[in-house]
C-alpha cells in the first residue's frame, strides 16, 4: 500500500509524483525530495561496490515515524521512490521489490512511447492507472496472521 509514488529524473527533478491523501501532497513532496539525499548516498556507495551486480533496489531509504521510504534506481539513474505507511507492517521487502519492478516495467513502456520526450513529466494514463492500482491493491488485502513464520520456518 504505497501512499506516494514518485519517479525522479537523473537530474533530481520529479517526472511523476502522486500521493493518495491529496491534502498532504506537500508533505510527501518534501519527504520524497529529502529522501534523495539517501538515494544519492546509496548510489555513490553502490557505485563502488556493486557495479556489475546490477542491484537496482536500494531498500529502505529512511524511516520516519509514520512512513517508510523505499528507493529504486534504474541503470539510467532514474529514481523511483515509494512511500509506504509505517502501520502497514504486512508489507515485506519482497513485495516492495516486486512493486518497484512493476513500476520499472511500466516506466519502460512510457519511455518506449515515441511521442514521449525523455525528461518530460510523465502523463501516461497507463502509467497512472498502474500507480493507482499499486496504491489501492495492497490496501484491499488484509494482513493475515503470519506470526513468526519467516522467523523459524
Amino acid at each position: 500500500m504505497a501512499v506516494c509514488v514518485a519517479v525522479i529524473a537523473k537530474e533530481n527533478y520529479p517526472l511523476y509524483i502522486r500521493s493518495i491523501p491529496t491534502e498532504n501532497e506537500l508533505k510527501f513532496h518534501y519527504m520524497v525530495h529529502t529522501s534523495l539525499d539517501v538515494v544519492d548516498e546509496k548510489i555513490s556507495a553502490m557505485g563502488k561496490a556493486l557495479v556489475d551486480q546490477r542491484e537496482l533496489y536500494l531498500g529502505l531509504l529512511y524511516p520516519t515515524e509514520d512512513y517508510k521510504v523505499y528507493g529504486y534506481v534504474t541503470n539510467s539513474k532514474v529514481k523511483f521512490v515509494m512511500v509506504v505507511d509505517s502501520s502497514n507492517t504486512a508489507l515485506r521487502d519482497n513485495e516492495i521489490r516486486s512493486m518497484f519492478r512493476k513500476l520499472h516495467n511500466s516506466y519502460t513502456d512510457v519511455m518506449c512511447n515515441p511521442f514521449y520526450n525523455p525528461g518530460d513529466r510523465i502523463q501516461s494514463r497507463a502509467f497512472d492507472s498502474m500507480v493507482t492500482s499499486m496504491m489501492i491493491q495492497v490496501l484491499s488485502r488484509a494482513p493475515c496472521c503470519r506470526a513468526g513464520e519467516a522467523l523459524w520456518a
Partner: protein
Amino acid sequence: MDAPEEPLPPVIYTMENKPIVTCAGDQNLFTSIYPTLSQQLPREPMEWRRSYGRAPKMIHLESNFVQFKEELLPKEGNKALLTFPFLHIYWTECCDTEVYKATVKDDLTKWQNVLKAHSSVDWLIVVVENDAKKKNKTNILPRTSIVDKIRNDFCNKQSDRCVVLSDPLKDSSRTQESWNAFLTKLRTSLLMSFTKNLGRFEDDMRTLREKRTEPGWSFCDYFMVQEELAFVFEMLQQFEDALVQYDELDALFSQYVVNFGAGDGANWLTFFCQPVKSWDGLVLRKPIDMEKRELIQRQEATVLDLRSYLFSRQCTLLLFLQRPWEVAQRALELLHSCVQELKLLEVSVPPGALDCWVFLSCLEVLQRIEGCCDRAQIDSNIAHTVGLWSYATEKLKSLGYLCGLVSEKGPNSEDLNRIVDLLAGLGAERPETANTAQSPYKKLKEALSSVEAFEKHYLDLSHAAIEMHTSIGRTRSARLVGKDLAEFYMRKKSPQKAEIYLQGALKNYLAEGWALPITHTRKQLAECQKHLGQTENYLQTSSLLASDHHVTEEERKHFCQEILSFASRQTDSPGHKIVLPLHCFAQLRDLHFTPSNAVVHVGGVLSVDITMCSQMPVPVHVEQIAINVHFSIEKNNYRKTAEWLTKHKTSNGIINFPTETSPCPASQNNLPALELYEMFERSPSDNSLNTTGIICKNAHMLLRRQESCASLETPSGVALEGGAHVLKCNDVTLEPGANRLMFRTQAKEPGTYTLRQLCVSVGPVRFVLPHLYPLVQYDVYSQEPQLRVEPLADSLLAGIPQKVKFTVTTGHYTVKNGDSLQLSNAEAMLILCHAENRAVIYSNTREKASDVLLRVQSSDKVTSISLPAAPAYHMIEFELEVLSLPSAPVTGGESSMLGMTEPHRKHKDTQKAGHCMATTDHKVSIDCPWSIYSTVIALTFSLPFRTTHSLLSAGTRKYIQVCVQNLSELDFQLSDGNLVDPGSADLQLVPLNAKSPQHTHSKQSVFFVWELKWAREPPPSLHCQFSVGFAPASEGQLSIPLKPYTYEFQVENFFTLYNVRAEILPPSGTEHCRTGSLCSLEVSITRLSGLLEVDKDEALSESDEYFSTKLMYEVVDNSSNWAVCGKSSGVISMPVVAQATHRVHMEVMPLFAGYLPLPDVRLFKYLPHHSAHSSQLDADSWIENDSLSVDKHVDDQLDSSSIKSRGSVHSASSSEHKGLPMPRLQALPPGQVFNSSMGMQVLVIPSKDDHVLEVSVT
C-alpha cells in the same frame, strides 16, 4: 575457593557468570590444584560443534567450580540454566588399594547414585598421582591398578570418564603432558554437556513457543525462558547468539502487535496496553535494567517498558560486539516502531509524553554511543547518528509548539499545566546520570522550563543537525531542518533570521525543480519579506506566486492584488521605479511581423503583433508596453537590397518564443539549445571559398557564467534601457491568458533594428524582459531603382517573335506619368509592338497592385515605352516581343560530299558539331528616367536551324542537296524552299522537292534537292543562295510576316571529268570467281570532256597541241575481301580528250565467298615536283616502295579546306619538302570523278577443295 562456600545469588550479573562445575571427593586436593586449573582452562580455545546446522565456534571456556551438593542438582521441571551444573568432577589422589576399598569406593558410589538419581550423566573422575606419595608407600600396587579399579567399578563402558593427572604441581614435561590431556578432556566434556543441555533446553523452549496459541500462554514467561538462553550465551561470551535470542523475542512481540492491529489480539497483550504513565526514556547505562526486568517478570510492564528493556539488552550486546552504529540505526527503528505500536495497540498516551520519551531516548542512545567511541569515530559515522539528532530536534520542536514555548507571548496557564504533567511523567532522575551535567533528563527539563531555554536547546539541536547533514552531503535534509528553523523564527517574529533559511531552501528546490515545495517556500518567503519590508523582493515573490498554478485561485488573486494596490498607492510619488522581471508577470508566446518578412523600405509601415500570455489571475490594466529597439546601420550595402533580405528571412514572419516551463531544473533547461549554422566565407573578388565551418550563433548564451540561482528570486540588476527607438503600446488591459498586442512603426532610417528589451509599466512597477530571445530583428532598406530584362524562355530563338520580360524595381523612385524607357534599337532586332501590352504593378511583397495598359511607340531608332505611374518600392512587370532576323552564317566552299570518297569521316564531323546552336548577340541600350546613364542589355538569340549542303553526282548529271536541321525544341513548318544562283544565268536549277510545306519536328532534318543543268560549259564554281520560309508549327497565325531563312554557299569543281569503271572477271573457262583463285580486275578510266579550265595546273603537259595530264590510280580494298596481286597502283598519263580511256589490268584474288563488293579504285592527280623539267624517274619505282614517301597529306587537307586554297596548300607543302624532288598526289575533287562501278558486287563461290569454311559475320 571461596566461591563455592557462598550461597549462590539468585541471579545474575551475567558478565560475572560462568558455567558451574561441581567438585566432589578430596576438597583439599582440589583446592591445591584450583589456581592452576582456573588459569589453564580458558587458555586454549576449543571448537564447539553445534546442533541445527549452526556454524561451529571456537570458545574459550571458563568455569565456576563449586563444591558438590545435592541441592545444586536441578529438580525435575526446573529449567533454570544459569544455575545448572554442567559437569560434576570427583577428585581423588588415592593410591592405596586398601584406602580405595575402604573409603573412596563408597564415596564414589554414593556420588554416582546421587547423580543417577538426577539423571545427570556429565561427570568425570580425576585421579591425581603424586610421585612423592608413591615413594612413601613402596609396597603398594602399581598405580594403574587403582585407576583400573575405578574404571572397572564405575566407568563400565566409558573408560575415558576417568582421567589421570600426574604430579600437577610440579614443573616437568610429564606434568605438562598430563595437564594438557586433562584439560582437553575437561573442555570436551564441558562442551558436550553444553551441547546436550542447551539442546534440551532449546527443545523445551521451542515446545513452549509452539504453545503460544493456547489461551493461557504468557509472553512474559516465555520471555524469561528465552532470555535464560540468552544469558547462557552471554555467559559463554557468545554475544551473537545471545543477540539472536533477543531479536527473536523482539520479532515475536512485533508480530503479535501487528496481529493485534489486524484484530487478532492475544490475551496477554492486554497487559501491555495499560496507559503510559512514565516516559523516562531508554536506560542504556546498566547492562541489565533489573527494575524493568522485574516488571516484565511480574507481567506489569507496559509496551514502553518491554521495548526499553529489550533494547537496552540489545544495545549492551551490540556494544560488546563493537557495533555502536547498529545501535544508532536500531534505536531509530525502535523509536519509530514504538510510536507506531502504541498507536496500533491504542494505548492511551498523554499528549507530548511520547515526544518526551523519544527525545530522551534519542539523546540517551547518542550519549551511550559517544561514551564508547572516540571523537574521530563519531565524526566519521555521522551518517548513522544524524537521524537520531534530527529526530530529537523534531520532537523537541513539537514539544515546544505543544507547550506554547514557541509563541511570542510564552506559555499560557494551560501550557504550563501540560509542562508540569510532562515533567511529572519523567519521574526523578536516575542515579547513574544524576551527576552528569548534560544528561538527557536535565536537558529536557531545562528546555521545558522557559522560553529562552527552549530556544537555546532547540537552536543547538537544529544547528547541530544542519551541520551534520551538511557535512555528509545531505543538503536536502539540511534544508528541511533549516526550513523548520525558519518557521520557528517566523513564529518568534524574527523574519530576518528566517529569510536566509528560506532562500537557501528555495534555491535548492528551484535548482531541482520541485514545484510544490517551491510554491510553499515562496509563500513563506513572501510573508517573511513582507515583514521585513523588502518591497521589491516582496512584489517579485508576489508576482511569482500570483502566476503560480499550484497556488489556489484566492491566494493568487491576493498576491496579484498586492502588486496592484502597491502600484496604485505609489502613483503620487513618481520617480521611484520598481523593476521586476517580466517572466513572472507575463510570457511572450509569439511575435509576428507585417510585412511578414520583416523587411520594410524607408517610409514603409511595419507592425509587430505580439501574443503575450498574462500569468495574472485577474485582468491587469497596463499603462504602457514598450519595446526598446537597437538600431544599427548595415555596413554591407548588398544586404540592403530587398531581394537579399527577402531571401534570407524566415518566410512566415512568425517568431515563437520558447515557453518557459517555470519549475524546471537549472541543469538542463536554463541552457538554450545549441544553434549551429554552416558558414561559408567567400573571397569578395572571385567568389572562391575562403573558409568554411560551423558557427554557434548563441555561444554567448551558452558560455556565459552560470549566475547563481538566487538571482532568480532577488530582482537582479535589470537596467532599464533608454533609447531613441521605442515601440510603444499604451493603455492596455491584459486579460489572463493570451493577449494580442500591436505595435506600429514607420520606418525611417535604413538599417537593422533589433528588438531588445520589453517593459510593461503598471504604475511605478516595471516588468522587464531584459532580452528578447530568439533574436527579433527587422530591416529597413532603401533601394536604387533597377531595370532587369530577361527572356521568358531558357534561350531566345532567332527568327521568330520571342517574349522578353522587363522588370522595373522602382526602389525609392516614384514613377510618374510620362516616364518612359527609351530603347535604342539594334539593327537586326525588332521590337514588336502590339496593341495590348499590359504591365502589372506589384507591391514590394509581390502583391498585385494594378494592371495597366502599356503604351509602346516605335520609331526608326528608338522604341519608347511609357511606364505607368507607380509608387516607390513597387515593381512594374511587362513583356515585350522581340524578333531577331535570322541570318545564316556565311558558309563557303563545299560542305559534305555525300556518296563520294570517304564520306564517313565527314559525317562524323558534322554530327559532332550538330548539337549546339549558333548564337548571335544583340545589344540594346535603354535610357531610364531615373538615371542619366544608359543601361546596356545584351540579348542572345540562338539560330534554330543548321544547314548543310552537298553535291551529288550521277555520271555527268549533278544534284545539289541542302539539309536543314532543326536544333530547337520547337516544331517548324518549312515552306517555299528555293535555291538560286544569281551569278550564272545559263545554269538551271530544277527543284525535285515537294511543293507543300514541310513539317520539321524538333531535332529533325529536312532535305531539299535540285538538279543542276547547264547549256554551255558550266563555270568552275557555283554561288548558291538557299532560302526557305519557316514558321513555328504550333502557332496558327503570326502577327507579322516572318523573313525567310537563308543560307549561302559555294559549289566548285562540280563537273565530272573522269569516269572510273572496274570489273572483275572470273578466270577464263569458269563461270564464277572462286576463293583462292586469281581473277582479273579490269579498270578503265575514261576522260569525259575535253580541256577545261579546271585542268589547267601543273599536271597538265602539252606537246603538239596534245594535252595530257598525269593521274595516279590506286586499288585499295579496305574490307580485306581481295588480295591484290602485283602492282596495285600506278601513274598514267591521261590525254585530255573526251572519251580518252585508259585501261589497267590487275590480278586479284577473292579471300571469301559470297557477293563481294569490288575493291575501291582511287584516282589522284599526280603533280610533278617543282622543277620545270619532267622527271626522268619512273614514278612507279618509288611508289612501289611504299606510298609512304609520297606526300599524301594533301589529301587530308582537302577534307576540311576549300579547293580555293589549293594553291596555298600546294605552296605550303612544297616548302615543307624543300630540296626533296618529290612528286605530290592530289585527290581529285569528288565532283570530278564518277565511279560507275560503285556499289557493284561480284559473286564468289567457295573453292571445292576448301576444307576450311570461314564465315565472317560483320
